[in-house]
């Protein structure tokens, strides 16, 4: 929402905390339960597939380690972007934001490659319980990454048109919270899906 909100409504904040940031944290709390439930499904069905391919047949640890690293680094880009915007350094702010989105897209590209490889190897949603729960869990995460990429690109676009300035650091911060959370979820998924086969 625009900057004029608070002024227009004389909305003071009893806690001194920005409304949108409180909203984002509460939303992230809710997301914990969403991914928690999806993880429950994946873990409960781990090893319950009646037919293959099974996780150990398909999961490519070195490959996914690379994309995991890419996503971790995108989080670094994100904090650098925020700190640049907070300093008023919009040039670097824009660059770091774009880098974040770019690394996000690389991660998504990796996921697309992984998915199509699995499908090629005979694993689809309908093949077995592993297929269904794997695609649903990582797919939901991927959708979150995609939304984040769109969001970040919108911010880059706004910055390009001069509509994103130091005064909007909060807007970047909130997008950042979302982005880091998506990263955090992947940290958990990486361990549970790929390493605890």
């Amino acid at each position, binding site marked *: 929402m625009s900057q004029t909100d608070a002024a*227009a409504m004389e909305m*003071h904040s009893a806690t001194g905390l920005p409304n949108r940031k409180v909203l984002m944290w509460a939303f992230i709390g809710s997301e914990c*339960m969403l991914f*928690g439930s999806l993880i*429950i499904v994946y873990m409960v069905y781990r090893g319950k597939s009646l037919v293959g391919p099974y996780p150990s047949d398909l999961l490519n640890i070195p490959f996914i380690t690379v994309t995991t690293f890419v996503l971790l680094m995108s989080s670094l880009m994100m904090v650098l972007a925020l700190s640049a915007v907070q300093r008023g350094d919009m040039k670097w702010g824009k660059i770091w934001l774009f880098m974040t989105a770019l690394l996000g897209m690389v991660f998504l590209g990796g996921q697309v490659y992984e998915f199509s490889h699995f499908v090629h190897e005979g694993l689809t949603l*309908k093949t077995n319980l592993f297929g*269904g*729960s794997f695609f*649903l869990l990582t797919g939901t995460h991927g959708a979150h990454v995609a939304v984040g990429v769109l969001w970040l690109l919108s911010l880059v676009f706004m910055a390009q048109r001069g509509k994103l300035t130091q005064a909007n650091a909060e807007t970047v911060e909130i997008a950042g919270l979302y982005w880091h959370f998506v990263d955090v979820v992947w940290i958990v998924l990486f361990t549970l899906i790929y390493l605890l086969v």
Partner: protein
Amino acid sequence: MAVTSESPSTSAGHAHEGTYAGGLLSWITTVDHKRIGVMYGVSAFFFFLVGGLEALLIRLQLGSAENTLIDPDLYNQLFTMHGTTMVFLAIMPLSAAFFNFIVPLQIGARDVAFPRLNAFSFWVFFLGALFMNASFLFGGAPDAGWFGYANLTSTQYSPGMRVDFWVIGLLVLGVSSIAAALNFIVTIINLRCEGMTLMRMPLFTWMTLITSFLLVMAFPAITVGLVLLMFDRMFGTLFFNPMAGGDVLLWQHLFWIFGHPEVYILLLPGLGIVSEVIPVFSRKPLFGYAFVVYSGILIAFLGFGVWAHHMFAVGLGPVANTVFSAATMLIAIPTGVKIFNWIATLWGGSLRLRTPLYFALGFIAMFIIGGLSGVMHASAPTDLQQTDTYFIVAHIHYVLFGGVMFALFAGMYYWIPKVTGRMMSERLGKAHFWMMIISFNLTFFPQHFLGLHGMPRRTFTYESGLGFEAMNLMSTVGAMLLGASMLIFIWNVLATLKKGAPAGNDPWEASTLEWSIASPPPHYNFRVLPAVGGRDPLWAEDLTEAVPGDDPSTPEPHMPGPSYFPFATAVGILVLAGGGLTLTLPVVFVGVALILFGIYGWAFQPLEH
């Protein structure tokens, strides 16, 4: 009655009936929390009547043994939609109506934190509710129970679109609930007026906050369950297919991880209302405020640890049953604490026996019964006899009707003067109360015995000779009277709108901030944002210091302008739902395009016009 007709602010009160002025378009684009609250209230009450009508048809069918009035196909649709409607389309949005109208007033704010998100929540709820009920016109309503146990909901055992309507409808309603809950979390945390610390918040606001947290934490679990089911039905996944190793019990876990907190989502707002009404009409502050607050938090927290008590008969084994039995019994303690504190509030008071208090007292009396029968099936072994029988039907109605609906009616009688600016008829209100409480007990008390004597629930017929006839007939007669009692309420509301006496600012001599301003409140609520120095600001010794009031010398504050983007986004979601239901990609794209259009327009439209 304490109508402050001489006070200067009453004249201001008349001036504010413009709060509701304007045509249909102004309602569609409104972002005013009061108008949204009214829309929530009216539509939720409409769906309450729809759900009630479904219940009456069910009772007509069960009025006699081996009755053939309603065939099983229709019967299963009716009980499924009765449950779904009452939970998601009646009680939750009725609570939301109070959240919307009352909470910003109680905390001394001009609106909620995100007014357009609020409008969006309402429209998603309303369109989702229409979507769910539209199923009646397209091949029949959902018929697998409001709990939708897998694998009865699979395409093999539930072909057609009925269950799809249910799955997609609930997903849509979940969006609405989570958005609204996030909004109220921020509103209550951030928009409290000066001096209103957390431990000075009115109880209703407290319970709204706790309910909102429950919503954001509980809904994701059912969302995941529904998505699994949707994938099974639409894309052929195997999540709930036992032939492929899928576990049908996983649905039950996910459903009840949501479903038990959901019970408290339904209940806590009612507890909040009663905690407001009782002190006001006892003329003394709430006894043990902190304990009532903490017990609410404790109930909510424990609510996440008891879901498997809905599954005692599935054979989880003695360890799980012991743990979940014990955890469930624990909940009785904070619940008891609340009841004792209410009675202690009454004790030593000067009870003004007006309609809101009647309903609040009726709530306590009925809720005790529902609580005690609840303890009976908290014990896993006794539950083996009671689960899935009419005993549970009786229990849930003592909690949700005798409990929650009585509390919500207390809230309606209490706050409708604030909403409309007019007093409701005491005579009709009390007639409504007595007819409702008598017919309620006539309907549901015998059902305890029906259950214990072996009548399973969700059965469209019962054989003669099992001894069920007399009690079922009693129940049916009671239900008809219960339905009729609603007519008194509707009559009362209509008469109030037409010729109710002016309410003034504070007809009940209440203590919270919503009563410090005109009825109905002006669109900006407070000309000057109030500041409070205690829990009961209007009862404070020095009124002027506590509440600045509606000082006409200050200019009217600017309020956010109307916006059609929330409505457009909600319509986009409805279109998307329709596309998903029929699996037509073009419709899905149109829906997504509408949603994106709505969100972008929304994001870039300044709040003030």
